[in-house]
């Protein structure tokens, strides 16, 4: 790749690329407001000024240039730190502060506001402008975000977002000159499903998430990489939390998955991470018809005892799982059946699912499959079909032992009725649900923000989650519960960690062969042996 020099160091660029884009990709920073890699270049904030001391032809540029609109050229020499540049940045910032309320103490952006950062760096912190500032005021502008127009610096990212990214055109530029406003017109609220992104890309605190308003100062938040489990797209996120409470999900850039974006529905899934009331707090066992708290040892002991009494044939054992479980959990459940009972009676729901087609990439994110790991289940060859026909056949025969992982077939009361009659029903789950009501033993798992795991998204990309917050004391991650059940039932295989389970899965499940846990990293890796038919149907193209 060709390269140019920035402050004496080489930076590679792709032909046709702009200087700012190449510099940001290389991990260096040039201050900027209006530029966003996902949207068109407007070069209007004038913050990204650089000094081109050699345009690649031995001659300097006559004046400071905006890096975002400057074509990178072989042999070019650019300075970003000299006095001329600093003066340029300083004056742009001063102009921006002319009309800015400087209400950082009550602004939610405080702490992640570029204007604030640069103002501390370059400014006196107060403006010399002693006239009344532009007054616009705070308004609700949509289902998910609100706007404090006083704080707007007219970078137009929001306008470009609804024009170029969602195509919904709810935002616009109105009036001109000093009166230029970026807004929805005449208080019309926005309706697009991706408004949270506008809060993300707004470089100041003009557009903010209503959900997050005044909740926490951002510098207190700790962050962990994860994925959104709101649907099968598996958008990459950071979970932002403080004192074991999650405050928000923010997108984490992954060009192969969600680019820079996240949908509003996905963002709201953070609420489940803080849910306590409906959580199963500890193992439960049925004592004289009632579920009562027991210890883990008592629970495992009771299961082993019943299994020994029942001596089920392979066809009398069944496992049901949903597709919210991680790859490792699905794999271990499969292993439990195979090694503990020589059975392969493991089923999950596999209805057809819809994928939108659209000229706007972002519309293709939300799928109708609201589970994160259907592709993982398919890769592991867990059984199932659209109408659950195969499963219904199996449950016609006699069943002695049934394992339920999560909340599969939640609406299928017919299936539930039959399983209710089984002698031993073991339920692994996070939240109380109707399976718990018919189970003999209930084993409390953990929500995905509390444990490690890998999930396979709709494009069959395997991605991993980190532990973000601490789980309830008497719960255990499902992969561990399944490993412990295997051991209790006398199997020799022993798993102490998710990577270990993953390694075994790579060995034993053909679809995962050739993939290693380390390769997943923060961006994921696609399966090499892909399932051909994933049950996808294309939904009509959205305008």
């Amino acid at each position, binding site marked *: 790749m060709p390269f140019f020099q920035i402050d004496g160091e080489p930076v590679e660029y792709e032909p046709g690329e702009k200087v700012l884009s190449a510099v940001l990709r290389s991990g260096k920073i040039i201050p900027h407001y209006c530029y966003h890699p996902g949207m068109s270049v407007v070069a209007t904030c004038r913050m990204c000024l650089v000094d081109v001391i050699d345009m690649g032809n031995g001659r300097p540029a006559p004046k400071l240039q905006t890096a975002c609109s400057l074509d990178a050229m072989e042999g070019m020499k650019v300075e970003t730190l000299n006095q001329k540049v600093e003066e340029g940045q300083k004056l742009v910032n001063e*102009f921006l502060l002319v*009309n800015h309320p400087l209400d950082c103490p009550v602004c939610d952006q405080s702490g992640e506001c570029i204007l604030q950062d640069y103002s501390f760096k370059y400014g006196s912190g107060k403006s010399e402008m002693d006239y009344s500032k532009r007054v616009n005021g705070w308004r609700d502008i949509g289902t998910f975000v609100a706007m404090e127009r006083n704080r707007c610096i007219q970078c137009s990212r929001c306008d470009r977002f609804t024009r170029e990214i969602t195509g919904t055109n709810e935002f616009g530029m109105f009036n*001109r*000159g000093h009166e*230029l406003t970026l807004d929805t017109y005449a208080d019309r609220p926005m309706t697009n499903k991706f408004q949270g992104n506008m809060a993300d890309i707004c470089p100041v605190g003009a557009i903010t998430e209503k959900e997050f308003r005044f909740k926490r100062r951002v510098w207190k938040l700790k962050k962990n990489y994860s994925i959104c489990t709101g649907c099968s797209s598996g958008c990459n996120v950071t979970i932002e939390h403080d004192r074991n409470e999650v405050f928000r999900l923010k997108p984490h850039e992954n060009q192969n998955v969600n680019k820079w974006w996240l949908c509003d529905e996905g963002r709201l899934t953070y609420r489940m991470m803080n849910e306590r009331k409906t959580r199963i707090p500890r193992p439960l066992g049925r004592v004289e018809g009632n579920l009562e708290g027991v210890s883990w040892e008592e629970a495992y002991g009771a299961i082993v005892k019943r299994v020994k009494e029942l001596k089920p044939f392979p066809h009398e054992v069944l496992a049901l799982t949903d597709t919210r479980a991680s790859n490792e959990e699905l794999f271990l459940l499969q292993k439990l059946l195979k090694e503990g009972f020589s059975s392969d009676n493991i089923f999950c729901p596999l209805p057809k699912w819809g994928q939108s087609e659209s000229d706007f990439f972002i519309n293709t994110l939300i799928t109708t499959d609201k589970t994160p790991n259907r592709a993982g289940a398919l890769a592991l060859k867990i059984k199932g079909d659209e109408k659950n026909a195969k499963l219904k056949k199996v449950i016609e025969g006699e069943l002695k032992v049934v394992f339920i992982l999560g909340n599969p077939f939640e609406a299928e009361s017919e299936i539930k009725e039959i399983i209710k009659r089984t002698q031993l029903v073991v339920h692994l789950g996070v939240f109380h649900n109707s399976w718990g009501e018919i189970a003999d033993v209930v084993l409390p798992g953990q929500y995905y923000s509390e444990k490690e795991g890998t999930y396979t998204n709709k494009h069959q990309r395997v991605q991993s989650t980190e532990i973000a917050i601490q789980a309830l004391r008497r719960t255990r991650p499902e992969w561990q519960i399944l490993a412990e059940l295997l051991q209790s039932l006398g199997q020799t295989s022993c798993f102490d960690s998710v990577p270990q389970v993953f390694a075994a899965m790579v060995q034993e499940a053909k679809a995962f062969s050739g993939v290693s846990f380390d390769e997943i990293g923060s961006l994921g890796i696609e399966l090499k042996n892909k399932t051909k038919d994933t049950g996808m149907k294309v939904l009509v193209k959205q305008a």
Partner: protein
Amino acid sequence: MAEETLVLFKNIRNPKYDKSLAGYKRSGGFKSLKKVFGMKPEEVVQEVKESGLRGRGGAGFPTGLKWSFMAKGTGKPSYLIANADESEPGTCKDRELMLKDPHLFLEGLMISSYAIGCHHAYVYVRGEFFPAIKTLNAAVGELYADGLLGTNPLGSGFKLDITIHTGAGAYICGEESALLDSLEGKRGQPRVKPPFPAVSGFNGCPTSVNNVETLACIPFILSDGGAEAFKSFGPQNNSGTHLVSLSGHVNCPGVYELRMDVSMKDIIYDIGGGIRDGKKLKGVIPGGSSSPVMKADEVDVLYNFDDLAKIGTMLGSAAMMVFDEGTDIVKLLHRITRFYAHESCGQCTPCREGTHWSSQIIQDFLRGNGSDEKLKRLYRVGGNMLGTTLCALGDAAAMPIQSFVNKFPEEFRKYYATL
């Protein structure tokens, strides 16, 4: 004694001139077009290059050279847009041409379209120019009726349409990239360059934007011996005659066609008949409101691109605004800054904030709240707009501020100095 040289105004200065198509033809119109149809387009561009014609829209860029930058072989149509947005304060020459001799300008537009291979030319007229719009539409109607527009004019095999397009009130749409956005049906906000219009202009196609007067020079340049003659009218690099819009405190304001070797002094005192009411000259804004102001003792200079540039100002659109000793400099500057604050498109930071802020500071002086510190601040705010904006409007707003403060500091002090 300075006097007019009539090339563009040859017809207009003839009191009996009939501006209809028939009248224009009778006065020798469309001879150049006929000749050009026998030439190769490159040859036409070459002639224009040789004439030394520089754009009359304000920047003074060589027209032939600009045309030679047009992207070729892109598979996209090429466009020529006539810039008839004339809104730079002081400038009223294009209106004169369009109202009084529309066919001269249209012939220039047609020859130029042929030169750059444009088959549909647009004239972007500012919306307030209702009479000029009517005149142009009528003239274009005549051309279609006569077969000079449409397919195969004069049996040339060339196809050309012309559409008169109306703006809707925005000075910034005179800036060529803003003009293109406006022509496309958008807010007229200047675009990032590169790409330049010659590569990606109207609807993303190669486009040349040329001022009305620039185009009106073309028929003469392409007449026999025209390029040579055009060049001979002025000093080197300042070819041809140009239209000077003279306004302000002179006895005979008006639009005059002059060679580029006439001095400003002669323009004010001979052509303009001197200062009104026998007053003394205080200064001149030489080239549209954005050009740096000159004091009375600086006007003994040739009125052309290079001589004005040498003394730190500019010819711009050749709009001379003359003001006498009774003029309040602070009020005058306030009016100028108000103009830019009103006309800034607002997309880029220094111009959006700087034009408004500077106008407020000057208002402070007018209200008796001036101070040394504010004068310094005014100068600094102006300077901070200079060279940091997306389009040249920021510079245009900054130059008057700095030059007024430099040249007339005492006028500002008068407003706050203790008596």
